[in-house]
């Protein structure tokens, strides 16, 4: 309190030779009993979440940190090829399996190994799942939204269309690649492999995808999307067999 008063006095007397400064009560100190009671009630609450932890996209670092132990119980993710991603923005196209929340665990895993937040495209925009996914790092699968994140130097994970067979790469939406071309951001392809029951999961990131031909028009993203799907399929083939988490089923699925 005394420090505050001294600061005010010295500031005020810079411009006036004789000034009597009335000490101000701190803003946090209520003057009325009701205010004191409210403050007493809210004091325990006030220490729960003392600092803002959401960033400009709504990703909540503390929320992610709180969920990660549970995520580790479900997935034990091994990430390879992370050295291909530079320090700036990048678009990472991943293969996804139905009902596997692939984009979520892949973005968290890549974020862990790179030591920086990674966004994933494809959060819903309905309560309550939309806000929760946003806090987990989700952004809308909207070209403008992806472009905005890439322009700000963020890494964005975009899923190909989900398939029931984890060894098969789904189609890639060219409209979601177009922001990367527009913002001159490298596009990477990553193959993912996980099981429905087991914890083991694998993410393998390929080097930057270079278009085979330079196009000026919309063919650029269409061809790059097809190229990405082929590259993703190659990576999945290299990763090996289907993993169900159960030995016998896995063996049968090998066909």
């Amino acid at each position: 309190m005394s420090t505050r008063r001294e600061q005010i006095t010295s500031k005020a007397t810079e411009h006036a030779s004789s000034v009597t400064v009335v000490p101000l009560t701190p803003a946090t100190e209520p003057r009325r009993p009701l205010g004191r009671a409210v403050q007493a009630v809210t004091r325990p609450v006030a220490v729960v979440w003392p600092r803002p932890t959401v960033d400009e996209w709504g990703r909540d670092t503390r929320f992610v940190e709180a969920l990660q132990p549970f995520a580790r119980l479900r997935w034990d993710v091994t990430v390879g090829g992370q050295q291909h991603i530079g320090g700036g923005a990048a678009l990472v196209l991943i293969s996804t399996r139905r009902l596997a929340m692939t984009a979520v665990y892949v973005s968290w895993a890549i974020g862990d190994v790179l030591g920086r937040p990674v966004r994933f495209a494809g959060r819903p925009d309905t309560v309550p799942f939309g806000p929760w996914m946003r806090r987990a790092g989700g952004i809308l699968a909207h070209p403008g939204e992806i472009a905005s994140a890439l322009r700000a130097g963020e890494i964005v994970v975009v899923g190909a269309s989900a398939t029931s067979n984890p060894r098969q790469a789904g189609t890639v939406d060219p409209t979601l690649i177009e922001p990367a071309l527009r913002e001159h951001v490298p596009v990477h392809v990553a193959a993912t492999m996980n099981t429905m029951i087991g914890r083991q999961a694998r993410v393998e990131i390929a080097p930057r995808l270079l278009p085979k031909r330079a196009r000026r028009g919309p063919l650029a993203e269409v061809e790059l999307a097809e190229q990405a799907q082929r590259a993703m399929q190659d990576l999945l083939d290299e990763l090996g067999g289907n993993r169900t988490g159960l030995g016998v089923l896995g063996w049968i699925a090998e066909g």
Partner: protein
Amino acid sequence: MRGQRVLVSGMGSELGSLVALQLESEPWVGSLEGIDVDPPRRRLRRATFHRIDPTDRGRVLDTVTRFDPHVLIHVAVWEPDARVHTKRARELTESAAVSILGAAAECPALQHIVVRSAAEIYGRRRGSPTRPDESAMIDPTSEFGHIAAALETVAATAATRVGVTAAAVRLAPVVGPHVPSPLGRLLRLPGVPFSVLADPPFAVVRDFDAAHALVAAARVGLDGPVNVTSPGAVTAWQAIVRGRRLPIPLVGPEWAIARRVSVLFGAPIPDHVAEMLHRGRLIDGGRAQDLLGFAPTTTTAEVIDSLYAWPSVIHVARLGLADTGSAAS
């Protein structure tokens, strides 16, 4: 560039007064005049102020054409429930836009128009971008958003017709200890409602930074829109906790009751603030530095803290210091 005549409409508002204050120290400003229905809130040394009701089109036209400005900074925008209720805010903003922008268009020296717009112009419809940039579609979903969209249209039309440049400075919610803002009033209530299921993030901008951006847009002669927001974001819950207020979690139907009750406490919740508490309000301000040569550095959390650090009013007589001479408050 030197010796420019600058007209500030809405000079009586907190933001308009700050803009005028900053313009007084700009070397390129030759003479400075202002129009508003209320007198300025700051001591202005160089500016000439005209107290005119925006609906008095004749007087506005006379005053503006006599001054013949090179640059018009149009800050005469009434945010719903900030100083007047929503319907009146729309009427005043529309009449000010027509009379002042119309009068400015009649001035032969006019070169540049800057209008104060708002982030609410993008709307928060389901599926709309979380952080729209300047190229995002204008799709307002609140009354304030519609007001801002209409204002930008009037300004762009006027600028096109007379062949001058027009800039729209789309500000995140302007908050400050002295800014009459429905969001600021709501957050300062002892108990603050928030959407427990959504609790989306939002960003704000400090009044000084908003004024700085408007002045910068006039200085560089920006043509087109620019988003201006503070870095970082907070959720309503985090803002409430930072201010040591009582968080009142709401789910849905009880919002109607909360909005009515908050009116009784002197802090009505207009639809754009309710929308912000449900759907968030973020904009991509990444281009401000390139376009204006300025980007706010005060973070959203710091702006929220300054809102709560507003010192209480001290009654000198109650403290027994009334006879000690001068006093500062």
